[in-house]
């Protein structure tokens, strides 16, 4: 029954990646590329070559990512559909938010973001229940809530983008420019990264830990909104009107998000490591992924973060060169970005070349998260402005 050599050779080959794609993969890709093409056709005339580049690059990147990470397809379609309907409902004046029921209670950026907050809280509760009550059903709920929270947040940003232009064409900007907006971005990125690994490693037990830091961010966001009116849309100061910013900021937050993820996984690691010694039957020892997996996850998150943070810092330098007249000025924010990189470079070298694993690296990752947090918030709070040379 032995086949002819040729067929045998063919049989030992490998079906090409494209042939493994489903119909939905293709439909979805067609929608993404088609959407981008439509935008080009409709607005290409008024777009700068940078913007055209971003659009095309973005579309291809999204397609590729969606093919690799399937849930992204539905997610992106949902976000696109709802954001567009919000834009459509708004029409040409902001006041529509008062009259249209759907905008007012669902899709206007503020409403969407409040939905995001609610869903995050529900998600967090569900994750904790699923971990401690060992309930898979709660786990599925948790994922569902968290996915929807991410969608709501992203819709919130998209609609806010439109709203800024409705306020006044001169005011309009991509909403990645002030503390309020980047906090939402941070929550989105961290959540999506987590959800990616949740699917990849088929475990929801890390959810509670990641949700802790999301919750902290959320608490700040709400305080910032209600105490400081942080959500008010104000036009950008000239320095912020720069194309590099549009990649710099997202890249930065992929970095922050990954480092946050690594830090929280590190905590889980330490808990399990201890639990295995103290009570091997406990939740931590039994429900959390194996130490090996968490160690690997830590490494993966930190490499991803390092890569993107490197990219972000470089873009930041290019931007600074155009806005401030020098690619490097040792201003606190820049310097702390460098410190983050140096810190994780140390981490990577230790792990890679000295073969360190486990507990010490987990502690280091937690320390790294501390440094990252300071670079993200502390610098703005303590090191700039008038009182910035206190503390020594």
């Amino acid at each position, binding site marked *: 029954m*032995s086949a002819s*050599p040729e067929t*045998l*050779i063919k*049989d*030992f*080959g*490998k079906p090409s990646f494209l042939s493994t794609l489903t119909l939905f993969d293709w439909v979805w890709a067609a929608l993404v590329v088609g959407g981008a093409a439509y935008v080009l056709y409709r607005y290409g005339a008024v777009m700068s070559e940078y913007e055209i580049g971003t659009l095309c690059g973005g579309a291809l990147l999204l397609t590729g990512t969606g093919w690799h990470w399937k849930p992204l397809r539905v997610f992106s379609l949902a976000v696109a559909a709802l954001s567009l309907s919000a834009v459509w409902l708004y029409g040409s004046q902001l006041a529509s938010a008062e009259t249209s029921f759907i905008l007012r209670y669902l899709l206007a950026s503020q409403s969407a973001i409040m939905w995001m907050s609610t869903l995050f809280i529900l998600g967090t509760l569900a994750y904790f229940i699923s971990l401690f009550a060992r309930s898979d059903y709660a786990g599925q709920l948790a994922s569902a809530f968290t996915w929807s929270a991410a969608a709501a947040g992203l819709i919130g940003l998209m609609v806010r983008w439109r709203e800024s232009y409705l306020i006044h064409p*001169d*005011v309009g900007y991509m909403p990645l420019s002030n503390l309020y907006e980047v906090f939402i971005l941070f929550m989105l990125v961290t959540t999506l990264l987590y959800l990616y690994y949740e699917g990849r490693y088929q475990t929801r037990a890390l959810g509670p830990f990641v949700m802790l830091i999301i919750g902290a961010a959320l608490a700040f966001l709400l305080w910032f909104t209600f105490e400081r009116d942080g959500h008010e849309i*104000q*036009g950008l*100061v*000239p*320095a912020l*009107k*720069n194309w590099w910013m549009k990649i710099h900021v997202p890249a930065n937050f992929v970095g922050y998000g990954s480092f946050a993820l690594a830090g929280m996984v590190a905590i889980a690691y330490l808990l399990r490591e201890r639990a295995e010694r103290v009570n091997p039957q406990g939740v931590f020892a039994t429900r959390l992924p194996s130490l*090996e*997996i968490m160690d*690997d996850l830590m*490494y*993966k998150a930190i*490499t*991803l973060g*390092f*890569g993107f943070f*490197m*990219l972000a810092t*470089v873009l930041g*330098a*290019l931007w600074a*060169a*155009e*806005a*401030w*007249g*020098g*690619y*490097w000025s*040792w201003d*606190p924010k820049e*310097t*702390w970005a*460098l*410190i983050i990189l*140096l*810190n994780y*470079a*140390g981490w990577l*070298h*230790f792990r*890679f*070349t*000295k073969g360190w694993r486990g507990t010490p690296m987990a502690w280091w990752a937690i320390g790294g998260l501390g440094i990252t947090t300071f670079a993200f918030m502390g*610098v703005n709070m303590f*090191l700039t402005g008038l009182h*910035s*040379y206190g*503390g*020594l």
Partner: protein
Amino acid sequence: MNTATPSAHSRARIWLEFFGSMTLAITLLSALAISSVVGTVLRQNVPYEDYIIKFGPFWFEVYKSLGLYNVYSAGWFLFVLGFLLLSTSLCVFRNTPGFVRDMRDFRLQHSTRSLRAFAQHAEWTVTLGAEALTAPLKNYLHARGFRVRVKPQGAGLLLAGMKGNANRVGYILTHVAVVVICIGALLDGNLPLKLKEWRGEVDLETKPGILISQVPKESRLPMDTPSYRGGVVIPEGASTRELVLQMRDGYFIQELPFEIRVKDFRVEFYDNGLPKSFESDIVLTDPELEQPLEQTISVNHPLVYKGFTIYQSDFRDGGSRLDLRAWPLRGNSGEALSVQGMVGNNHRLDGPDGSLTLELTDFRLHNVRSALPGSGKKFVDIGPSFTFKLRNEKGEALEFENYMLPFDQDGRGFFLSGVRSDENAEFSPSRIPADAQSGVAGFMRFHAALRDPAQRGKAAQRAASEGPPGTRALAGTAGELLERFAAGGFAATQEYIVSQLASAEGARREQLARAYVALLQNSLHALYVNLDLPRATDAARQQQLFEDAVNTLGALPEYAAPFYFELVDFNQVQAAGLQIARTPGKGMVYLGFGMIVIGVFVMFYLPHRRVWLALSEEGGRTQVLLAGATNRDQLGFAREFEGLRDGLKERLQRL
């Protein structure tokens, strides 16, 4: 001699080991990180006085000697940086040959036994000759991204596959990039300048407030300085050939090889008063250009010319011309003296008590405040203002902020004038009521009349005569009241009245008090009417004007200045703050940027992987051994290897 050579050689080896060692590398990375922190918690390059105030003379000196006020160009910091540079270079130097060899070497020397020792391996036996299997298996690895070499081995052969060589390239890119970036940055840094300074060829200008033209030549840097970055403020219409390089507690003057003129400067604001955009039309004149280069630069859109980059960084007042009227508030004269002022200049005035210096410090065309709730708008622009200091002969100064236009408060206009005695305090506002033509003249004339005995007299007579019959005799008292009021406002007048009432008591006292107040009111009104100032249209408004004026007069003695400065007209001159940088190393730094980003991602995501298929045939049956190894992401590889294994397994079973 021939014994020394090997030992010297091995010594070099030891040094290489040491400098290239990972432990050192990590120590340096941390050292650099920690020392970078210093420069962020201690604000860099602020005036030395601030540091002295903060740390006191002793610690100030200590920190100064440690170079903490500009850490990033401090010797020890550069030393750490250089060290890391050396270590990285050596590291690359040491690892590269090995890696390159690695990239070529398919490890064909492995035997079935050694392969069995691998963590990742699997075995099968199939009823097919090694010959027949070779092509399919080769294709199997090929299709999965491996480059394959085949070598006969004993009674069979060995297929060795390898992929992810790029990973090694990534390593080289990343680490060479670190070196490239540092060298580029070094080219752009001010190390050469520091050396010149150290050799005493140049020295820092630290005298404050001298004109650029007066800076001595030992503080001037020649045009051919390879790299620098400095700022300059150019008023509209003016031009410069020099740049100011701030450094420590002073500055150098850098001569430019061209002249920059700011033809025009424009700024736009959002409703909330924040700048929306600002830009300058600049003209660059260079002997080497046949005609001058004209371009508009704005934030994020610099002009690049021959390795120089000219940036719009900020803006300020460039010496606006202010047409002022100084209304005296003391003494008898009521005539305003007019002052032609210029922001940034000082002007002398003779006040009632000695001469004064008027230092005009700033002019602002727009002052945006958040609007009153009712108004429907969110913000209002309350118009131009100017700030100035009044310095007396003793050198004591007060700072003022006066507005050009009356500020509307429920239909009544007031000119705001804020006063403060120290820079960090808020301005405490005083209000001058606008007259019927919304100017200050009306009030000022009223005030002058009050200060003038003759007019006071007339007013007193009139008030007395027009009053009820009983009051005819009171002209004297009325005069007295006016005089007190003129001298000391409400406070003094009240004091006077109280003293007059000493004898009276009870109800009568009440009555008298009211009579005095009424008399003062009438006299003031008479004084006011005598001036017959332009009147408001309706009586109520007119009355309001009068009362506001009186209330202000009553409080005016507290106003700290002997003059009120009215801004009559202005001619705004703005100045563009430019940054000019010469950065020969920029290209190199950007190259390094590109290398490091690509390198890092390649290193992370294109792991280097090896697989082997060992075939040993006996009696028509072939034993197939699959083994694999990688240099990173063991878990990931384990998963990939499972894929390889199962795929192969089920194909082999089908045979």
